[in-house]
């Protein structure tokens, strides 16, 4: 026969809860903190994923999955019929904007999108869209960054913008000068990825005027109904549309995801969650276990009266579930509020998101966190529940809540309060271990996080990628319209900078290397393989074996020489006796002893040509430098480095690409101010400075401090809560014992000294482990971290550690004081009688 005893169990559960207010507070706090931490981890994870996804879309400039080149009208019709195609639009190129030197390094085209393409596929990848898509022939819609380069800070609808453009590629076709009206603008992110390639949008009318169509000059972009089946659908498309041989289906690169990366992230996330669950578990378990121990008589009584072990378990588990109902929403709500502030901060400080962040409020975050927190709580409740259920009613009657594991002692306390305190700490070894572990984990996490953050040496980090205090670069070289920006007059200004110490010049010109298969065969084969550039004849190679020749100063090599197996003879280099080839695989050049260099010139009008009036020179190969040396882009022929002396001899006045400027210590700020004045308005010149880079880093370091410190503090708080609970409960349970001590003549001062010594004992033991094992762990984690962040220098956070230690000591002293005061509210006689 089944009887319904749910009601009485519920009542017992409820009453139990009511009588344990302090314990409830601890458990609710533990649950809320666990929920908060897990939800924050989830929230950051989800937001990061969504932000990265959004970033991909924005950098691609489209939400489409794939594009089909030169689609015919009938193919478009078919495309729109296909059931797996959600949307398809077309766009085509109309013209190529002639970049003025003022606009600097950029590559702009005039582009037309049809209605679907713009509204459904393009606009979602842009932000801050203002105005409307161009309708009239003379209307344009311009990305904001382009407007800025044009010198327009405050655009308005209808304002006039003059542009020059070529109607065909390669500066062919007619050059048209036209004054457009601005019909709208938007923030585009494409240029970040593509290296300043972007489009100005124009009307259908203009496109038609020049006879441009999608079939001839454009492509169709396609959005499928399922982003995980893009590859499959692309194959399907080829069959369904009957694409011609010249037509291609291109997948938008954002959808090639690396599963390896995802796995590492997943493992890292699981580790963090497991750690959070463990710390939460330690607290909840301990609090409940102590509570059950205190209520042994209550559970024993229940058993005497006929409550089954199963029902007692239900009473204990039921309490924790009810506390979860309070704790989890609190934690989730705090996490929700925090995510408005903390998540964007965290994401923007990761540095990998350049296109704005989204904060995810997916219900999955809170559902997941709630489940994990509930799991933690139940895990913590399970053993105490089992214990409550297994209590023998007879033993329970005699139970005093005082547990001793030992039977004999081998040392003497001599009535010294601190010695008694030490024995008290290890009265219940398991409990002592949990409290110590909990405190230890909390403090160690705190120290580890602060160590990692303080170890992120900003100066060292900046020095690892910036060679000099300041670097100025002439951007006209990169666009292909080289123009001497750093004239000798400019150099003189630089040399008169406050505190000026040294100036290093990198010059750059074009050259053609005399190609022969015997010498460069291996290199060219390798190049062709890497770049899928098949079908080149020997003549093609010979004609196009052009590349960059750069002139450098001797100082540029001094640093490099330190890391080289075969150091370069700098004096001979300086005299122009040999050239260096930039490569990571010098064995490809085994047969190259000497380079025959034909000086070339590259202009916007006529492209690459032999430099008029110059003779080829022969230079021996004197060594190799790494491919990335000097951070100069690469061409077909390998990059060649010679001394500036030689450059000047061959090219007369070569274009200066970069200036590396060092100033005396203490003058950085003044020099920066002066440089700002010289270069701020000049778009063709870009500037990098250690000072600015450091400031930027410092700001993000502070943010990391706040966020990392926050997490560490919460974990430390869990450890401390655990201690506070154990300590204060421990004292309350011993109320009668302490009263006895007073009866036999322990003065209050002595009782207090004993209790405070107990707290201090916990603190000292914890700190001992923190400073030995904990520091070893911190150092180990730092070593792992350093493999990723090579610029990190181990810096022990003495001040935070000192503060944390003092805080631990203070709490360990205050807690017993407090508990002591609370029991002294009742008189010794009352306390003596209480247990009887």
């Amino acid at each position, binding site marked *: 026969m089944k009887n319904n005893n749910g009601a009485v169990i519920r009542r017992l559960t409820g009453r139990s809860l009511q009588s344990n207010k302090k314990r409830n507070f601890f458990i609710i706090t533990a649950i809320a903190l666990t929920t908060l931490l897990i939800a924050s981890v989830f929230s950051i994870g989800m937001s990061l994923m969504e932000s990265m996804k959004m970033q991909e879309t924005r950098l691609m400039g489209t939400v489409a999955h794939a594009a089909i080149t030169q689609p015919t009208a009938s193919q478009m019709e078919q495309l729109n019929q296909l059931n797996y195609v959600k949307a398809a639009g077309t766009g085509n190129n109309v013209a190529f904007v002639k970049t003025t030197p003022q606009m600097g390094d950029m590559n702009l085209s005039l582009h037309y999108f049809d209605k679907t393409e713009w509204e459904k596929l393009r606009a979602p990848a842009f932000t801050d869209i203002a105005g409307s898509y161009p309708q009239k022939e003379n209307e344009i819609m311009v990305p904001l960054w382009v407007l800025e380069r044009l010198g327009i800070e405050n655009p308005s609808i209808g304002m006039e913008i003059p542009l020059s453009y070529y109607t065909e590629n390669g500066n062919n076709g007619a050059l048209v000068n036209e004054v457009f009206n601005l019909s709208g603008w938007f923030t585009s992110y494409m240029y970040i990825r593509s290296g300043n390639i972007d489009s100005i949008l124009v009307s259908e009318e203009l496109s038609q005027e020049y006879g441009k169509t999608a079939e001839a000059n454009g492509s169709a972009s396609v959005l499928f109904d399922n982003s995980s089946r893009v590859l499959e659908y692309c194959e399907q498309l080829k069959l369904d549309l009957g694409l011609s041989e010249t037509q291609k289906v291109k997948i938008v690169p954002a959808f090639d995801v690396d599963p390896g990366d995802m796995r590492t992230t997943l493992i890292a996330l699981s580790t963090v969650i497991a750690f959070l669950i463990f710390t939460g578990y330690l607290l909840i378990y301990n609090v409940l276990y102590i509570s059950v121990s205190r209520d042994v008589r209550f559970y024993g009584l229940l058993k005497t009266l006929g409550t089954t072990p199963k029902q007692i378990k239900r009473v204990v588990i039921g309490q924790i579930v009810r506390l979860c109902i309070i704790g989890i929403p609190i934690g989730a709500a705090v996490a929700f509020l925090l995510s408005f502030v903390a998540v964007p901060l965290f994401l923007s400080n990761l540095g990998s998101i350049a296109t704005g962040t989204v904060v995810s409020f997916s219900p999955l975050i809170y559902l997941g966190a709630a489940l994990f927190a509930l799991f933690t709580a139940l895990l913590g409740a399970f053993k105490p529940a089992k214990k409550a259920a297994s209590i023998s009613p007879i033993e329970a009657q005699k139970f005093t809540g005082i547990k001793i594991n*030992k039977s004999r*002692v081998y040392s003497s306390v001599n*009535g010294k309060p601190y010695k008694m305190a030490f024995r008290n700490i290890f009265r219940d070894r398991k409990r002592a271990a949990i409290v110590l572990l909990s405190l230890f984990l909390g403090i160690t996490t705190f120290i580890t996080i602060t160590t990692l953050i303080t170890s992120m040496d900003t100066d060292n980090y900046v020095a690892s990628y910036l060679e000099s205090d300041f670097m100025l670069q002439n951007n006209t070289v990169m666009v292909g319209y080289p123009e001497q920006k750093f004239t000798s007059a400019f150099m003189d200004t630089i040399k008169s900078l406050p505190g000026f110490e040294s100036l290093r010049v990198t010059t750059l010109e074009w050259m053609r290397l005399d190609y022969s298969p015997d010498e460069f065969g291996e290199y060219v084969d390798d190049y062709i393989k890497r770049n899928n550039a098949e079908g080149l004849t020997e003549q093609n190679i010979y004609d196009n074996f052009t590349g960059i020749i750069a002139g450098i100063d001797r100082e540029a090599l001094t640093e490099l020489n330190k890391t080289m197996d075969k150091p370069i003879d700098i004096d001979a280099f300086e005299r122009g006796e040999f050239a260096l080839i930039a490569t990571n695989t010098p064995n490809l050049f085994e047969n190259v002893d000497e380079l025959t260099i034909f000086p070339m010139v590259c202009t916007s009008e006529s492209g690459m040509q032999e430099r008029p009036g110059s003779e080829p020179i022969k230079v021996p190969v004197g060594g190799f430098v790494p491919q990335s040396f000097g951070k100069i882009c690469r061409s077909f022929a390998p990059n060649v480095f010679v001394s500036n002396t030689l450059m000047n001899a061959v090219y007369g006045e070569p274009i200066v690409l970069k200036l590396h400027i060092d100033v005396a210590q203490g003058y950085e700020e003044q020099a920066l101010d002066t440089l700002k004045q010289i270069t701020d308005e000049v778009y063709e010149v870009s500037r990098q400075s250690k000072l600015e880079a450091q400031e930027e880093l410092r700001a993000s370091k502070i943010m990391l401090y706040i966020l990392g410190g926050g997490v560490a503090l919460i974990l430390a708080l869990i450890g401390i809560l655990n201690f506070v609970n154990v300590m204060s409960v421990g004292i309350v349970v011993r109320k009668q014992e302490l009263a*006895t001590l007073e009866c036999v003549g322990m003065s209050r001062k002595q009782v207090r000294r004993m209790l405070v010594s107990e707290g201090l004992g916990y603190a000292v033991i914890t700190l001992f482990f923190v400073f030995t094992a904990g520091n070893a762990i911190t150092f180990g984690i730092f070593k792992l971290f350093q493999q990723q962040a090579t610029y990190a220098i181990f810096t022990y956070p003495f001040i935070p550690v000192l503060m944390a230690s003092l805080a631990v000591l203070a709490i360990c002293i205050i807690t017993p004081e407090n508990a002591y005061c609370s029991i002294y509210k009742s008189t010794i*006689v009352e306390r003596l009688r209480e247990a009887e």
Partner: protein
Amino acid sequence: MPVLSTQGLKKHYGKEPHIVRALDGIDIAVEAGEFVAVVGMSGSGKSTLLHMLGGLDKPTDGKVIVDGQELAKMSDEQLTIFRRRNVGFVFQSYNLVPILSVYENIVLPIELDGNTIDRAFIDEIIDTLGLGEKRDNLPNMLSGGQRQRVAIARALATKPSILLADEPTGNLDTKTSQDVLGVLKMTSTKFHQTMMMITHNEQIAQLSDRVIHIEDGKIVREGRS
């Protein structure tokens, strides 16, 4: 001169009309070496009397004089120190300190006072009470009777002016009770120790030199046994 005496001792709880007169004018005098039993029903006020005599509680009115000193005039701190030098307690529930060994429990009051231990005397007590083998054990390894003997030894250790025992056999079976009472009686004689024992059991009280009967906070009868 009596070692212990009270004059018009009163202890009232609450206020009129709900006043509880736990003790209502008690006058006792105990001579040195005397073994006195106080007998009364549950709620008669006998425990309250013991607390007053031991300086654990303060009287509403009247005086408690132990060894010529009046307890009511002392501060808490002074009382504690007075207790550890002059009063020994034996409780029904033993009240041993669980983290201390038998020996440590016994000498605790002496050590708390910072005195050197009279080892010969302590050894004599331990031998007399038959605790020699259990010296280094923790209380959780002892039987009820043994625990109470440790409590008695602890009470004797400081050679107190008076030993107060509150239902010392309340938690013990008959045989063990006899045993413990025998020990009390024997030590009283052997160490010439003044003792006052509280009990509700007439038979046990008969072991003492003198029995005082209390009812409703008043002495109703007194006589030599």
